[in-house]
């Protein structure tokens, strides 16, 4: 099966230049990343600010070109200038601030912007807009003004705008950082639905540990490198290691770990309140 994302020894360097254009400093933001994402996977990337996760996201969307190594998105080389638009159509990107991504004054026009630019025939555009808005649960707002929507709703409109371009993969860079708890839940639920029903590959970058519990795979980045990867349970079982990378674990995982340290026979890697309650019963 063709891989959705395939990176080998990927490097990206930000080069800082002085006023004369001489190289003043080089920051290696991505440092030898090898990564495979299978179609239909839900992958979460964790890492502290400056660990390189956003740089990778921008490389997948061909906003930044790899300095070394190679990166294929849906079999297309992101370094090939002729493939630029195909890459971007395969992997759509959603950013942190919903207000920076919405451009039209009516929801459905905003969603139509992407397919319009791809030259999709008008009748098809409306079909796609309707499907995309339905997929994110925003169909009833199609004629509303985006200004009047909540943060979570705006982000779902932004996701619909990407979905209308029929990408195989969506990359989201901290899509919930500016949202309230309800907005966050809405967005994460929408992503899982798109992943389950539309079989879209999801690559979610986040600082909220509780948002990655439902992922198939979690990747932890530090200093431009992948330092941990596995299922959420495998990754969150290593509480101390996570903290050493300036990260955290969900409260329920931390509580179980603290109790274990205090002598209670709690298993590692508890991820939900239900699992915690079960484990607690075993301790009685």
């Amino acid at each position, binding site marked *: 099966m063709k891989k959705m994302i395939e990176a080998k020894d990927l490097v990206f360097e930000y080069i800082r230049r002085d006023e004369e254009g001489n190289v003043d400093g080089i920051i290696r933001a991505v440092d030898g990343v090898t990564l495979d994402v299978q179609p239909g996977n839900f992958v979460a990337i964790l*890492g*502290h*600010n*400056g*660990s390189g996760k956003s740089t990778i996201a921008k490389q997948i969307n061909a906003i930044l070109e790899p300095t070394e190594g190679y990166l294929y998105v849906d079999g297309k080389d992101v370094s090939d200038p002729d493939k630029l638009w195909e890459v971007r159509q395969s992997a759509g990107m959603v950013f*942190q601030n919903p207000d920076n991504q919405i451009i039209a004054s009516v929801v459905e026009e905003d969603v139509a912007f992407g397919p319009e630019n791809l030259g999709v025939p008008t009748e098809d555009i409306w079909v796609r807009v309707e499907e995309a808005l339905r997929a994110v649960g925003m169909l009833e707002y199609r004629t509303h003004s985006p200004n009047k929507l*909540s*943060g979570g709703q705006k982000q779902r409109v932004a996701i619909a705008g990407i979905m209308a371009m029929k990408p195989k993969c969506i990359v989201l860079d*901290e899509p919930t*950082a*500016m*949202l*309230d*708890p*309800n*907005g*966050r839940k809405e967005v994460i639920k929408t992503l899982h639905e798109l992943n389950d029903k539309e079989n879209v590959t999801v690559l979610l970058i986040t*600082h909220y*540990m*509780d948002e990655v519990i439902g992922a198939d795979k979690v990747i932890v980045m530090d200093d431009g490198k992948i330092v941990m990867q596995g299922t959420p349970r495998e990754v969150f079982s290593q509480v101390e290691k996570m*903290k050493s990378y*300036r*990260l*955290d674990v*969900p*409260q*329920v995982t*931390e*509580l179980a770990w*603290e*109790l274990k340290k*205090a002598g*209670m026979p709690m298993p590692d890697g508890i991820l939900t*309140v*239900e699992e*915690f*309650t079960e484990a*607690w*019963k075993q*301790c*009685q």
Partner: protein
Amino acid sequence: MSIVLDHVNYTYSAGTAYEKHALKDINLVIPDGQFIGLIGHTGSGKSTLIQHLNGLIKATSGAIYYDGHDIYDDDFSMKELRTKVGLVFQYPEHQLFETTVVKDVEFGPKNMKLPQLEVQMRTFEAIKMVGISEELYDASPFELSGGQKRRVAIAGVLAMKPEVLILDEPTAGLDPMGRDEILDRIAEIQKERKITVILVSHSMEDVAKYVDRLIVMDHGSVQFDGTPKEVFAHYKELESMGLAAPQVTYIMQSLRAQGANVEDATTVEEAKEEILKAWKKI
């Protein structure tokens, strides 16, 4: 210094199609030295409320008293109020503009027309307080990391020595460690300077860990006002307002439903103690 809000109402775009009653009959007493959390979903009125506290928005009706003085009195100095009530907006690093960290932080006290020596003392004290190391004093604020930038921006407000410090989601977009570092600093500063801190947050875990008092806004009104424990006991009502309780609160509920003899908890430490107490009794 205490702030009293007396029947404060605010209506946006009154008389137009977009009229919105953003604050409805707000009555609050904010005494000296309290660490207060303010939560509510987007559009609940939190931001409108905090902008009233330093006079950026004028109430449509009702009165606000700062240290006993009506802030809407003609002879009340709004300019002074804004130095006493320091407001750190969301993403304050977007407001950095100077060429060095020191210059950026001293902008506030300089504008207060303080003597040069006082400006310098306040600047260095504030930078130190937020935990920015000396080698960064002359760095461009734009070269710093996200967390450092945000600390410099907070220092800019601290340098004005506000009596009340209001922070609108100071940890949005920061990694977990960066989040803890900033909040730990703010908690220390609150204790050291004995100032009032109002923390607007979407993170229930954070407010539970740090604040003495929690105010919940919904549809422009204050819905709950109490200790985190008192407020989070109403987790079902909070959920209907688009909020939630910290995850440990749900754990304790679930254990109690199974017959465990544990009290409510809002932080991991509290929950740990409660569960261990119950476990050791067996």
